[in-house]
C-alpha cells in the first residue's frame, strides 16, 4: 500500500504532495522536509539504492530522479519495492503524455491536474489503473465536461 507521493525539486522544495490516506501521513511542513531531506541525502551517497527507511519503521521511502525533480513514494516495507519504483515511472509517463511539455513549471502550476491524474491511477493507496492511456482518456473526458 502506498501512503503518499511527493515531488520535490533539486533544491528540496516541495512541488507536489498527494496523501492517499490523510490519517497516516506527515501533515506539517517539517515532516515533509525531513522526508525529502532523507532521500536527498541518500541519493548523494555513492551508488545508492533508491530505498530509504521511513521514520515509521514499517514503511520505506522509494525515490526516483526525473531530471531536476525527485519523485518520492512511501510504501509498506514488505511491498514489492521494485514495483513501486516502476510505478513512479508510470505516473510520470502519464503526466508527460497529459502535458505536452512537462516541466517543473507545469508541475508547480497545475497541482489539481496532478491530483486528478494520480487519482485515476491510485485510489486509497492501491494501484487501480496500469495503463496511462486509459487513465488519461478519462481525465480528458472529464476536462471536457465544463458545466
Amino acid at each position, binding site marked *: 500500500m502506498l501512503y503518499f507521493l511527493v515531488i520535490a525539486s533539486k533544491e528540496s522544495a516541495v512541488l507536489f504532495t498527494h496523501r492517499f490516506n*490523510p490519517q497516516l501521513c506527515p501533515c506539517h511542513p517539517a515532516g515533509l522536509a525531513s522526508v525529502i531531506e532523507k532521500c536527498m541525502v541518500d541519493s548523494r*551517497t555513492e*551508488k*545508492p539504492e533508491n530505498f530509504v527507511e521511513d521514520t515509521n519503521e514499517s514503511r520505506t521511502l522509494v525515490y526516483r530522479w526525473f531530471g531536476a525533480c525527485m519523485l518520492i513514494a512511501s510504501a509498506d516495507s514488505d511491498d514489492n*519495492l521494485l514495483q513501486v519504483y516502476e510505478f513512479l515511472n508510470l505516473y510520470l509517463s502519464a503526466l508527460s503524455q497529459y502535458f505536452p511539455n512537462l516541466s517543473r513549471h507545469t508541475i508547480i*502550476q497545475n497541482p489539481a491536474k496532478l491530483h486528478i491524474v494520480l487519482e485515476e491511477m491510485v485510489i486509497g493507496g492501491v*494501484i487501480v489503473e496500469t495503463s496511462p492511456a486509459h487513465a488519461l482518456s478519462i481525465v480528458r473526458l472529464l476536462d471536457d465536461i465544463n*458545466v
Partner: protein
Amino acid sequence: MSSIKQVINEAVEKGKEVYDKVRQPNPIRLRDLIRQIRSAKTAAEERSVVNKECAAIRLTFREEDSVWRCRNVAKLLYIHMLGYPAHFGQMECLKLIASPRFTDKRIGYLGAMLLLDERQDVHLLITNSLKNDLKSPTQFVQGLALCTLAAIASPEMARDLADEVERLLKSSNAYIRKKAAICAVRIMSKVPELLEMFLPATRNLLSEKNHGVLITGITLITSMCVQSPDTLDHFKKTVGNLVRILKNLVMAGYSPEHDVQGVSDPFLQVKVLKLLRILGRGDGQASETMNDILAQVATNTEATKNVGNAILYETVLSIMDIQSETGLRVLAVNILGRFLLNVDKNIKYVALHTLLKVVHQDNQAVQRHRTTILECLKDADITIRRRAMELCFALINPSNVRTMMKELISFLETAETEFKAVCSSKCVTAAEQFSPNTRWHIDTLLKVIIAAGNSVPDDVVACTIQLIAESGEAEQQYAVAELWQRLSAAPLDTQPLLQVATWVCGEFANFLSLVGGGVSEGEVVAVYQRILWSSQCSAVTKQYAITSSMKLASRMPGTNSLVAQMVSAYGSHLNVELQQRGVEYTQLFTRYDSMRGPLLERMPPFERSRLRVSQDAAAANAAAAAAAAPLANGLHNNNNNDAVAAVQAPSQSDSNALLDLLGGLDDSANDVPVQVKSAPLPPAGTGSLNSDILDLLGGLGGGGGGDSGGTLISRTVNNGGILDTGLGSASNNLLDDLLNNSSSNLNNSTLANNTINSTNSLPVSTLPSSDEYGSLTIYERNNLRLVMTFQRQDSLTTITLTATNSSTSCNITDFLFQAAVPKSLQLQLLTPSSTSLAPAASLTQFIRVNNPNKAVLRMKLRLSWFADGVKIEDQNEVNNFPPALWQY
C-alpha cells in the same frame, strides 16, 4: 431629529467605504499565490504568506461567497499540499460537492479526499452527498463519489453505503466496476462483517478483459482471503483462472496499452502472483496447479530491466511460500543469487531483504549464497552492509562458524561505529552458541573486543571475563599471555580491552611469570601505573585497574609497596568512586593487612548463571525463561540451607554480577563449605568488578569504619517461606549481618564462617507488609484468576503473583506466565511454585522488577495453559499498578 438621521446616514456611508477598502475586491488567483509562496526566501516568510492568504480565504468563506469558492478551495489544497493545516475548508468542500456544476464537484471531491479528517459531523454530511451521487445517472459523478469513498470511508459511511457499492460492483460499466471494487476493499477493511455481502459479486471479476477491473478485482479477492480463512477456501477454486490470466500475460504478444518496457502489465502480474501465494500457502493441490506457471514466469521473465526484476522478486516469494517442487525452489534461490550479484543496488537490497525473510524457512538454500552475502559486507553502500550483516548472523551454524566469524570480525574492524556495538554483541552470542572449543571462543571474544574498540557494549566485557574465569587453567594461562601482550602494548584509549586485560592479569597474576620469558614485577607495575595515571582511561577502567592491582599485590608480593603507593594516591582522587576505592584499599594495606590475603583470593569459577535481562521488551519473555532455570536450581539446591540471597541492583549496576553473586553464595554454602573458608567472600567473585560488590567488599574491609558504601542491599529469605507463604515470612538483611558480623568478629577473620552462620541461623525480621500497596487482580477470565501483591525496596519491586484456578472441575496444566515491561525497567521471572492447578488450587510465582529510573510501571502479559488438555492462550496489559511502586 433630521440632523440625527443625517449623522447616522453619514456613519453608515463611512462604514461602507471602510469596508470596501478592507475587503479585497477579488481573491487572488492560485497562480499568483503559487508565485508568492515560491518567491518567499525563508520558511518564516513562506509561513507569513500562507497565513495571510488563509486569513483572506477564511474571510470569504464566512461571507458565503459562492463565486470564488472553487478558486479558494483550490488554493487551500495547494496550501495543504505544502503541509500547512487547512481543515477549516472542509465545509466548503462539502458545499462544492453539493453543487450541480461538475467542475465544482470535481474540486469538491478532491478537497474532501485530501482534507477530511475524522470529524463526525462532516462525515455525516458527506455521506448524504455521496449517497446521492452514487445514484447519479452520470458515470463520472458516480466515479468521483466511489473514488472519494474508497479513500476516506469511515465505519459508519461503510455501513451506510455498502449497498450502493455492491450494486455498482455489478454495473455494466467497467470504469464503475473498477472503482466499486476498490471501494469494497476499503469498506471491508473498516467493517469486516460486510465481507459476505460482496462475495457473490466477485464471481465474474476474474473473467474480466479490462485490466483495470482485473487488478482491482484481484485486490478485492486478496484482501478477502487475508481477512477470512473461510473465504480463502472459497477462492481456492479460482487458482485455475488466475493461472490462466498469468499465462495470457506471459504469453501474450505486445499490447501497447499495458506494455512497460517490453513486459506485459507487470503490475497485474505482481498482483496475480501475490494472490497465488496466499492461495497456495499450505495447500498441496493448489500449489501443484501453479507450479508450472511459476516456473514459466521465473524462466521467461527478462531480468535485465527493473520491471522484470519486480516480477521475478514476487515470483521468488511465491515459490518459497507455497509447497513448491524442490527444483522450483532451487530455481528461486538461484534467482536471488543472481540478484545479489546484480550491479543495480535496488535489486541487491531487495535480494538481501528477501533472503532475510526466507532464511528461517530454508536455511540450507540460503547457505549456498554465503560467499556472495559475505561479499556484500564489503559493499560501498551502508544499507546493503547492514542487511548483509544481519543475514550473516542468521547463517552461522556449527560447521561454518570459524569462517563466518573470521569474516565478521574483519568486517567489524572497518565497520562504522553504529554497527560496532550491535555486531560485537551478536558475535558474542554466536560464539557462545557455536564455539567448537574454549580456546577458539576466548580468541574470538578477544578479537571482537579489539576490533570493536570503544564501541563494545558492557555485557561483552562481562561475558569475556566470565568465559575466562570459568575455563580451564591452560586456557587461563593462554588468556593471560595474550592479554598481557595487549596490555603492555595497547594504546590507552580502548577501554573495554583494558578492562578485560586488567581483570584477567590481576586475577591470574601468578601466570604472568610463565608468560614468555616471565614478566618482571617492575614491568607489571609500570603498566598499571601507566593506566592509572593516564588521562585517556575512563574512570571505570581505572576502577578495574586499581582492584586488579590489589590482586596483583597479593599474588606478587614484590609489588606490594609500589601498589600501596599507587592506591594511597587514589585516596584523594577527584572521582568519588575511585577515591573510595583508594581509601578502602589503603586500609587493607595498613590496619587490616592480615585480611588482605584471604580477601583477595582467586574467585571460585562461577556457574554459568548469567541473567540476561534483555533490553528488548520483545525478547524479555524468552530471556526471563532462560534466566529462570539456573535460578531455580539455586532455589532447589538451597532447600537444605534455607538461604537464598535476593539481591537488589541499584541503577547502574550490572545484573549479571548479581545473579553470579547469588550463584556464588549458593554454591559455596551448599557444597563446599571448606572452600568458603579459604575464599572468604565468594560474592566478590562476580565477573565484572561491579562497583556495588566492591562496596560490599569495602564495607567489610572498612569494618568498624562505619561507612558501608551502602548501595548494595541484599537479604536472605527463608526458602520455604518463598514457596509457601511469600516473601514476608522470614527474611533478614544480609548486608547488615555481614557488616555486623565482620566488625564484631574481625579477630576471628573467618568472615565466611560468619556469613554462612548468619545465613543458616536466619534471624527473623519482617519486611514491610505487602498491604502497603494493596493487591491487584490483573486477570480474571477462563476460570483463572491472577492476583498480584507487591513489596518494594528502593528500586526493586518484588511482585507475588498468585494464580488461582477458579473452576470447580477443570484441571489446569502447563501453566506458563510471561511478562514484558518497558525498556527502562528490568524484569526477572522466577520459577512458579507449580505449573499445574487442580480445581480451586493456587500457585505462586515471584516477579522481580528493577525500576531505577522510577518509570511508570506497566506490564504486558502472555498466558498459556492447558485446561483439561485444551490449550488456552491469552494476553493482557496491566496499566493500573499502584503509583506508590515507582513514586517514592
